[in-house]
């Protein structure tokens, strides 16, 4: 298991790996939005938490099809399936590697990029907290989508269609935490719901991902 995680992380930072792809996309979104909205600092700071969350979500989505498709193409997935690792463990490690290479950098970059969107001062900590709690759910749900579409040629579009509705609850509660934090309101309810979603999908979805992966490997 640890070997698989280390290999995925090493592959991500080697040339041609996916590391930085999501981060670059996130940067582009947050740089371009102020140009699109125009010089209205007050409006910008009102929409900043939502923009940061949408940017993070789309950045995650961008790299999802790499989670399993690359291993499928070179045959590693077949060999991993015959290795003494449980399939549930494999998909969990894959999701964890995706979170470390995509979700975690987004969490760390969000406060820096928040400056560009003139994010209100009290919102910084809540944007970081909500992303830290919510992005693991994005990776786990995304791995489920990748498992559903592995082996399909050009499965990326289908995967986006399958995954986006599943992302909506995470987005709603994540952005709500950041928005309420920005306005100085209490964030307890949406934060607990966001954490509930994350823990729920981390506990359940690996079993679903492993099951569909077994079917897709036939």
């Amino acid at each position, binding site marked *: 298991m*640890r*070997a698989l995680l280390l*290999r995925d992380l*090493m592959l991500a930072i080697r040339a041609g790996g996916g590391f930085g792809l999501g981060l670059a996309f996130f940067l582009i979104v947050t740089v371009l939005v102020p140009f699109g909205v125009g010089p209205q600092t007050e409006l910008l700071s009102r929409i900043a938490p939502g923009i940061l969350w949408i940017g993070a979500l789309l950045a995650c989505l961008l790299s999802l099809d790499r989670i399993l498709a690359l291993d499928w193409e*070179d045959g*590693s997935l077949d*060999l991993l399936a*015959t*290795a*003494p690792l449980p399939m549930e463990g494999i998909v969990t490690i894959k999701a964890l590697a995706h979170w470390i290479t995509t979700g975690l950098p987004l969490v760390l970059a969000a406060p820096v990029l928040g400056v560009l969107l003139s994010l209100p001062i009290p919102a910084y900590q809540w944007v970081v907290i909500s992303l830290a709690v919510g992005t693991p759910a994005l990776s786990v749900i995304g791995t489920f989508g990748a498992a559903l579409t592995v082996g399909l040629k050009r499965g990326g579009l289908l995967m986006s269609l399958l995954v986006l509705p599943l992302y909506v609850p995470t987005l709603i509660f994540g952005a709500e935490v950041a928005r309420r934090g920005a306005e100085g309101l209490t964030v307890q309810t949406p934060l607990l719901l966001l954490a509930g979603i994350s823990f729920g999908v981390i506990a359940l979805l690996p079993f679903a991902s492993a099951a569909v992966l077994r079917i897709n490997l036939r």
Partner: protein
Amino acid sequence: MVLTVRDLAVTRGGLAILEGVSFDLKAGEALVLRGPNGIGKTTLLRSVAGLQPPEGGTVTGAEDQIAYAAHSDGLKAMLSVTENLKFWASVFGLSDIESALVAFDLTELRNRMAGTLSAGQKRRLGLARLMVTGRPIWVLDEPTVSLDAASVALFAEAVRAHLQQGGSALMATHIDLGLDEARVLDLTPFKAAPRTRQMDEAFL
């Protein structure tokens, strides 16, 4: 008896292609599957390896005993030869890769990126992976593709050493490996009779 296959029936793309396949594999024994293209050698091997549930029949003794090698080698282009082998060794809970490197003449290539190897060298690395799994049953699908005569000899030598250590091998190949101890099973007589499938299966 290491591996027992009884009355196995397999399907590809929803069509039955083989049925009634039975064979035994003992320790120290090699079985070569023969048959024309499309007869179902790959599908049969995938079923034995547990990647595909068989349509009927049983495979016993395969659980956690099989090292499977297919058409693609499962190598990462951006990892070196050593890193690729080390990864697979640690997945299978082992750490020694030196004997595998020596057996397939890869010691000089050990620090090269797998993506820069030739097709035959990649194949040799893919086969060297079998040796670091420590599994007793090798299930090999066309192992000699893109290997030259010298490499085929290396491979035959590795299989022979594996058999002598009490392992066994099940492989689909058209090349004569010069393994005198290998039995040959022709799959042509097991070709499934064409039949119409029941309608409701389409909705399951």
